């Protein structure tokens, strides 16, 4: 006998406002139908009616877990259109800040993922504490706790403070120690292994066919990372290596993110060594931005959740059409395939392992 269960739109584990209509046969999931759009507010339309640099704040609110990554994506698109490119130091500064943002985002994911598995709030508070330290560091740099709006054409709004390197290194040492603890805490727990290994398997072919991105794609054994394959800023110089797992289950997705955090630490460390002296400040925001040179712009960035892409058709002072490829949107579409055949209890750990931000899905 099939039972239909409505989960959401407001449910503790849907990470925002997501409605799932789950069809169950006993305890096995036969079908999951996500209903989205509860947070849709039309960012693309709003951006069409704003001057170029006015939209940056909107872009940050698309993905509130990693706002800086989105503002970087958008500003990079405008930079591409206007032909004002960041100098060498600005590239490094952006890279450092973005990698810190990636660690913060993954830390939050780890906490909520453990919540979904039923470890009520212990891991969550631990990772949030570490995330807070990163946010404090970013606050020292940008002046804001959550929405930074610190990317400017050709650089950043405020350069790194003089004692930044010392602070950052101290924080990185601390984080490295914590990651070891987390790994020991989780991977030595047989129940955690049991709940994640072999659960929610997404095969390599399916991952490509469904178009999933980011850590989900890499966990399925596809060697693709925008940071390497469409390299930008200084990733090539820092010998960046994408983190790949082959199993494609929840554990692989966990592992990829864990390794990515460590890789980010490595990247920041070497970037801090190689960063050139000089000035990283960009153009201050003015209502009238520099003239646009390109007709169409395509920009790709590796956001914490996956590959973000902006396709922009430019007008004189504002985008004629701004098309966003948000990673969580396409990762959610894979849920139906992954969750089929899993037990109801695993639905939320699978959902959690995809690392969805609903505002990112709904645009």
């Amino acid at each position, binding site marked *: 006998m099939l039972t239909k269960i409505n989960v959401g739109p407001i449910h503790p584990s849907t990470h925002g406002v997501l409605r799932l209509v789950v069809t169950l046969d006993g305890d096995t999931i036969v079908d999951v139908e996500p*209903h*989205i*759009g509860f947070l*849709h507010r*039309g960012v*693309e*339309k709003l951006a069409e*009616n704003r001057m170029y640099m006015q939209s940056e704040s909107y872009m940050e609110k698309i993905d509130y877990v990693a706002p800086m990554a989105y503002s970087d994506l958008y500003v990079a698109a405008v930079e591409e259109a206007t032909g004002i490119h960041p100098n060498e130091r600005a590239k490094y500064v952006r890279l450092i800040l973005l990698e810190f943002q990636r660690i913060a985002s993954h830390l939050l994911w780890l906490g909520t993922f453990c919540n979904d598995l039923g470890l009520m709030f212990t891991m969550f508070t631990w990772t949030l504490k570490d995330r807070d330290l990163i946010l404090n560091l970013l606050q020292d740099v940008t002046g804001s706790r959550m929405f930074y709006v610190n990317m400017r054409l050709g650089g950043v709004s405020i350069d790194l403070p003089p004692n930044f390197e010392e602070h950052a290194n101290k924080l990185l040492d601390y984080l490295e120690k914590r990651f070891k603890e987390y790994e020991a805490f989780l991977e030595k727990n047989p129940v955690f292994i049991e709940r994640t290994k072999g659960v929610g398997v997404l095969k390599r072919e399916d991952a*490509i*066919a*469904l*178009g999933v991105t980011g850590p989900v794609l890499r966990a399925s054994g*596809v060697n*693709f990372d925008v940071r390497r*394959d*469409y390299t930008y800023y200084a990733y090539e110089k820092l010998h960046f290596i994408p983190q790949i797992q082959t199993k494609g289950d929840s554990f692989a997705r966990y592992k990829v993110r864990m390794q990515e955090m460590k890789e980010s630490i490595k990247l920041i460390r070497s970037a801090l060594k190689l960063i050139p002296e000089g000035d990283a400040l960009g153009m201050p925001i003015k209502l009238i931005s520099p003239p646009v040179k390109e007709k169409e712009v*395509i920009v790709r960035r590796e956001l914490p959740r996956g*590959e973000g*892409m902006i*396709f922009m*058709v430019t007008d004189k002072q504002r985008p*004629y*059409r701004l*098309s966003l*490829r948000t990673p969580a*949107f*396409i990762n*959610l*579409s894979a849920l139906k395939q992954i969750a089929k055949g899993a037990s109801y209890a695993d639905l939320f750990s699978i959902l959690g392992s995809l690392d969805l931000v609903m505002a990112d899905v*709904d*645009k």
Partner: protein
Amino acid sequence: MKINKEELIKKLKELSSSGYNYLVKITAVDYIDHLEVIYFIRNMQNKKEENVRLDLKNGESLPTVIEIYKAADYYERELSEMFGIAIEGREVKRLLLEKWDGLEAPLRKSFQWGSDYKSG
């Protein structure tokens, strides 16, 4: 590359069999007198990217490519409600604007986006 609407399925099949197996995005641009639909596809082996473009007249429908790329599901649904493009060959349920009572597709240039602004 720019193609005709009739060639779309054939062209995409050709590309997907030659290794372009990853659909990055389907998007559309409203040029008031016509619509341009763009398929971004990628070869996961050598990471090359190709975009296939076609022009649609207003009110014209678009053939579905879900047979070739599974990922097209959500993108086509999004297109159909954001631009009001009808999709041939599949049932298209609403996606983002499930409970929306607006009549016009919001991303068309003719959409009166400021109308609500005054009443609020």
